[in-house]
C-alpha cells in the first residue's frame, strides 16, 4: 500500500520540477533576452522592452501551458476512472476535438466578438456534446474496443467539421488555422487568453476535486459502488460537466492538444497505488509539466514559424500509446 509519505514525496517532486521548468520557460524564447534586465524592468524599474517580453509574452504563455496541461492530465485521470477504461482520455473520447469545433464555430462566425466568454462557452458546449455522443454510442462500461471505435468516429467527424467550417469562414486567414485547431499551439498567447481560460478550468477543477472518493468506490464495479453509497448517475453527470468546463475552456484557447490526457495518468498510476483519488492531483501536475516541456521543445526547434505543440505531444504520446497496446496484449486483455 502506498503511504501518505510517498504520496507527499511524489507531489513535492512534481512541484519542484514544475517550478524549475517554469523558470526555464521564462528564459527560453525565440529571441535571447537578458533575464536580469527583464526582471528588473518588470518589477522594479521602468517598463522596457525586455520587461514587456517577460510579462506580456513569456509569463502568460507559461501559465497557460501549465493550466491547459493540468486540465488535460486531470481530466484524463477522471475519464479513465469514471469509464473504468485506460484509454478514455479527453483526446480519445472526443472532448478535445469537440471543444475545438465549438471554439471554431464561435470564433470564425463572429460570435466571439459579442462577449469575451462566448469563445470558451462554445468550447464547453462542444466538448460536452462530443463526450456525450461517444458515451451514448459506446454505452456504459463499454469495452475498450467499442470505446475507441466510437471515439475514432466522433473525432473524425468533429475534425472534418472543423476543417469544413474553417473553409467556409468569412476570414481569409481561417483556412490556414486548421493545423492550429487540430494540433494545438501556445504561440502568441497573451493575458487575454489567460483570462478566457481561467474561470472555466478552475470551475471544472473544483467540481472534480470533491469526487475522489466516489471514483475510488467505482474501482469495485458499479453495483458495489452503488451499494456503498455512490450516486452514480449524479456522479457521471457532474464529472462530464466538469470535464467539459475545464477541457472546453482550455482547448478553446490552445486548440486540440493530444495525448497528454492519455499518457500522464498512465505514467503516474503505478506511483499512487492505482487509487483514483490519489491520482487526480499528480495527474494535473504531471499534465502541466509535460505540456510546458513540450512547449519549450517547440520554441527550441529551429523552424520558420513555430511548430505546433501538438506535434511534439503526439511524437511523445503516439509511441507510448502503441506501447500501451502491446502491454495490453501481453497481459491478455
Amino acid at each position, binding site marked *: 500500500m502506498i503511504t501518505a509519505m510517498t504520496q507527499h514525496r511524489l507531489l513535492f517532486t512534481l512541484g519542484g520540477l514544475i517550478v524549475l521548468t517554469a523558470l526555464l520557460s521564462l528564459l527560453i524564447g*525565440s529571441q535571447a533576452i537578458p533575464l536580469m534586465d527583464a526582471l528588473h524592468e518588470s518589477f522594479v524599474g521602468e517598463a522596457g*522592452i525586455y520587461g*514587456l*517580453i517577460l510579462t*506580456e509574452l513569456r509569463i502568460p504563455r507559461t501559465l497557460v501551458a501549465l493550466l491547459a496541461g493540468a486540465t488535460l492530465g486531470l481530466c484524463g485521470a477522471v475519464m479513465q476512472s469514471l469509464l473504468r477504461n485506460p484509454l478514455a482520455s479527453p483526446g480519445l473520447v472526443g472532448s478535445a476535438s469537440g471543444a475545438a469545433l465549438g471554439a471554431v464555430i464561435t470564433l470564425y462566425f463572429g460570435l466571439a466578438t459579442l462577449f469575451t466568454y462566448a469563445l470558451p462557452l462554445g468550447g464547453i458546449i462542444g466538448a460536452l456534446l462530443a463526450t456525450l455522443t461517444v458515451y451514448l454510442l459506446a454505452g456504459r462500461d463499454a469495452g475498450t474496443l467499442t470505446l475507441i471505435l466510437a471515439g475514432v468516429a466522433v473525432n473524425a467527424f468533429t475534425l472534418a467539421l472543423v476543417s469544413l467550417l474553417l473553409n467556409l469562414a468569412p476570414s481569409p486567414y481561417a483556412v490556414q*488555422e486548421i493545423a*492550429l485547431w487540430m494540433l494545438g499551439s501556445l504561440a502568441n498567447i*497573451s493575458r487575454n487568453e489567460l483570462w478566457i481560460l481561467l474561470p472555466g478550468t478552475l470551475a471544472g477543477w473544483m467540481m472534480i476535486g470533491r469526487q475522489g472518493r466516489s471514483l475510488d468506490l467505482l474501482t469495485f464495479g458499479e453495483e458495489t459502488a452503488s451499494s456503498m453509497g455512490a450516486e452514480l448517475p449524479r456522479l457521471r453527470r457532474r464529472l462530464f460537466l466538469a470535464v467539459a468546463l475545464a477541457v472546453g475552456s482550455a482547448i478553446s484557447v490552445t486548440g486540440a492538444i493530444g495525448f497528454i490526457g492519455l499518457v500522464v495518468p498512465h505514467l503516474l498510476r503505478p506511483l499512487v497505488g492505482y487509487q483514483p483519488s490519489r491520482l487526480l492531483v499528480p495527474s494535473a501536475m504531471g499534465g502541466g509539466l509535460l505540456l510546458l516541456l513540450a512547449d519549450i521543445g517547440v520554441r527550441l526547434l529551429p523552424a520558420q514559424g513555430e511548430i505546433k505543440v501538438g506535434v511534439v505531444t503526439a511524437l511523445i504520446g503516439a509511441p507510448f500509446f502503441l506501447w500501451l497496446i502491446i502491454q495490453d496484449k501481453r497481459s491478455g486483455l
Partner: protein
Amino acid sequence: MSAMVTALLLLLLTVFPATADPPQRVVSVNLCSDQLLLMLADPRQVASVSYLSRDLGSSFVVELAIDHPINHAQIEEVISYQPDLVVTTPYTNPRLLNILEKLGFKTHRLTLGHSVEAITTDIRQLAARLGQAPRGEALIRTMQQRLQLTPSVRHVDRPKALFYQPRGYTSGIDTLQNEALQLAGWRNPAAEQGIVGYVPVPLEQIMLWQPDTLFTSNYGVSGDSLAERQLEHPALKRLLGHQPLLQIPYKYWICPGPMLAEAVSMLYEARVGKR
C-alpha cells in the same frame, strides 16, 4: 532627358517594328496585368480581364473593369476571345502559357518587380506594346510627381517602422512595402537585418526591433480569426504606447503599379503627423 526619350524610342522601334499594328483584342488573366492594361489601353483594345479586377477589396480599376467581359484564367475562356495579345505575369500558370504558345498566341509578360524602377519599366514596355506610349509616359510622370512630394530624409533622422500582418508576417528587402517605407522616409529594421521578402517573424523579434510605428494591411473583408487577433496582443499595444496599428489597404500592395505612389504618401503623412 530628351536624349533618353529618343534612345528609348529607337530601342522600341527595333524591338517592335512599326509595321506591327497595335493589338485590338487584348486579354489579361491576372489582377496585376488587368490593372496596368486597363490603365494604359484604349477600352476598345481590351477583350477580357480577370474576375479579380472587379473585386473592390483588391482592385484599383473596378470602374474601368466593369465594362469588360471577365475570365478565370481558364485556357478555353482565353482562347474564345481570339486574343491578338495575352498579357501575363511571372505568376501565370505555366501550363496555360505553354498551351497559348503552342497555339501561336502572342503574349506579353510583365516583370512585376518590387521597385519604382521595375514599375516604370513594366508600364513603359506594356504601353509600347499596346501602341500607347504617350499614355505610358503620362502615367509614369504622374507617379513620379506624386513621389517627389515626399522629400528625402537623412538616415539618422528616420523613425523606425515595420509592417506587421495577420499571422505575424513582416516585409523585408525586395517587397513593395519596404520600397514604400524607404521612399516615405522610414527605416525598416527588418530590411536592415537582412530579412528578404515577406516572412513570418516571432512577436519577440518585433518587440526587440522597437519600431516607432507598426503598419498593417489586412487582406479582403476581414472576419474574426486568430491571425487577426494576433495584431491586438497587449504586448504590441504597450510597445506602441497604445497608438493603433495603422492600416493601409491591401490593394496598394497586392500588385506593383503606379498606386504605390499613393501608398508612399500615406506612409509619409503618418511619419510627418507623428512629429
